[in-house]
């Protein structure tokens, strides 16, 4: 049954365009999406999911399920990096372990978006408030990562490397992408409440265009991820294994928590995807600044070069299979 879901996932335009990008690199085609076009699509997608999430949050209100789910999501982004850290410490030093752990505690918005498209394709319902979970899971993992460095780093760490909490918190909360996502969520929320005609007029931009823009962006992500993969291979088999096993493990924990929260299958999948995905946006930027001892090629290449493609292609349908298995249908 999972193979069926995988096939259904793979034969959708977003995933096919992702492959098109990957294959371009493998065949050494000179196809490339020049900067800053990827940024345009990235901003567009964040703005659009934020706005749509805000609209639906206005509809659903802040009922107990919303609060519980978002709260649980934040907890996950605090707990998962700690687990990751101890697994990584088996082979890596404190700095690299903490930086990678932070990436895996945080989330990937594009993976989330692809999971939403997957659900829409299967006509499975999910709620807009999950976007709030997405937005709020980006930053906490950064803080945990830095606390891990603070408490586990060798005493000899140079004073110049002392953690400047203010600038870190700033970096974590006010990173451009996180800020745009949260801001658009607010705007969607306010617009839904006060200006219904504004909602309607945004719809062609934020709604109709979304799927195509997602395809275009995944084409670029395919190129970028495929270019990253060789760097991961150089990093050795431990990190390769980690980049696949860790998402599966995090997903499993995610499924259990989703079951406890009594989420429907759609919300459950999104919750699991948040747990299983790893950040290559806000986290690397913060880690580079605060843990310069960690190799950026490690934390970026694991998250972007392997975990991301794995999730897009196999992860999402596999997690759906897990959700279907562990969470009894009711809708």
């Amino acid at each position: 049954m999972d193979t069926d879901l995988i096939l259904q996932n793979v034969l959708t335009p977003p995933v096919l365009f992702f492959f098109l990008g990957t294959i371009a690199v493998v065949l050494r085609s000179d196809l490339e999406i020049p900067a800053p076009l990827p940024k345009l699509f990235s901003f567009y997608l964040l703005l659009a999911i934020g706005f749509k999430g805000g609209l639906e949050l206005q509809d659903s209100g802040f009922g107990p399920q919303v609060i519980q789910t978002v709260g649980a999501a934040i907890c996950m982004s605090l707990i998962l990096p700690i687990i990751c850290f101890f697994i990584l410490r088996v082979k890596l030093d404190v700095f690299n372990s903490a930086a990678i752990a932070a990436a895996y505690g945080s989330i990937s918005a594009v993976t989330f978006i692809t999971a939403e498209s997957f659900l829409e394709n299967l006509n499975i319902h999910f709620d807009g408030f999950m976007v709030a979970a997405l937005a709020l899971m980006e930053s906490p993992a950064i803080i945990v990562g830095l606390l891990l460095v603070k408490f586990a780093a060798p005493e000899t760490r140079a004073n110049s490397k002392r953690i400047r909490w203010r600038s870190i918190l700033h970096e974590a909360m006010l990173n451009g992408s996180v800020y745009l996502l949260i801001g658009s969520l607010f705007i969607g929320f306010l617009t839904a409440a006060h200006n219904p005609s504004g909602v309607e007029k945004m719809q062609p931009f934020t709604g109709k265009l979304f799927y195509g823009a997602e395809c275009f962006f995944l084409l670029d992500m395919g190129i970028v991820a495929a270019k990253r993969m060789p760097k991961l291979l150089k990093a050795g088999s431990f990190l390769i294994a980690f980049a696949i096993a860790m998402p599966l493990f995090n997903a499993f924990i995610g499924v259990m928590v989703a079951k406890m929260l009594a989420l429907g299958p759609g919300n459950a999948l999104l919750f699991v995807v948040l747990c299983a995905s790893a950040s290559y946006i806000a986290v690397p930027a913060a880690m580079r600044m605060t843990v310069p001892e960690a190799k950026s090629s490690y934390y970026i290449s694991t998250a972007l070069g392997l975990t991301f493609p794995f999730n897009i292609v196999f992860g999402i349908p596999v997690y759906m299979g897990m959700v279907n298995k562990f969470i009894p249908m009711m809708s």
Partner: protein
Amino acid sequence: MKRLDLIFSDRELDSMLKALDDGGAPGYTVIKHVTGKGPQGAVSEDMEFTDLGANAHVIVFCDEEILNKLRENVRPILNYYGGVGFVSEASPI
């Protein structure tokens, strides 16, 4: 007169420019979206969509005394975050 070329991650651009202003640079030119390779590995255009950005290349033409002040201000940034700086001779047109 001297020419100073600084190349570093554009995330440090603001603090670098502040360091130059504080050091009394009479002006500077900034080229963004620059890529390259150095002791800390390669920086590619691909990653510009993440908020890691690319490199910035900053050029300063200034007198020797000012250069010495700039050197002091600039070195800690390059030491902490990486990046390189080179000096050569120049004269105003």
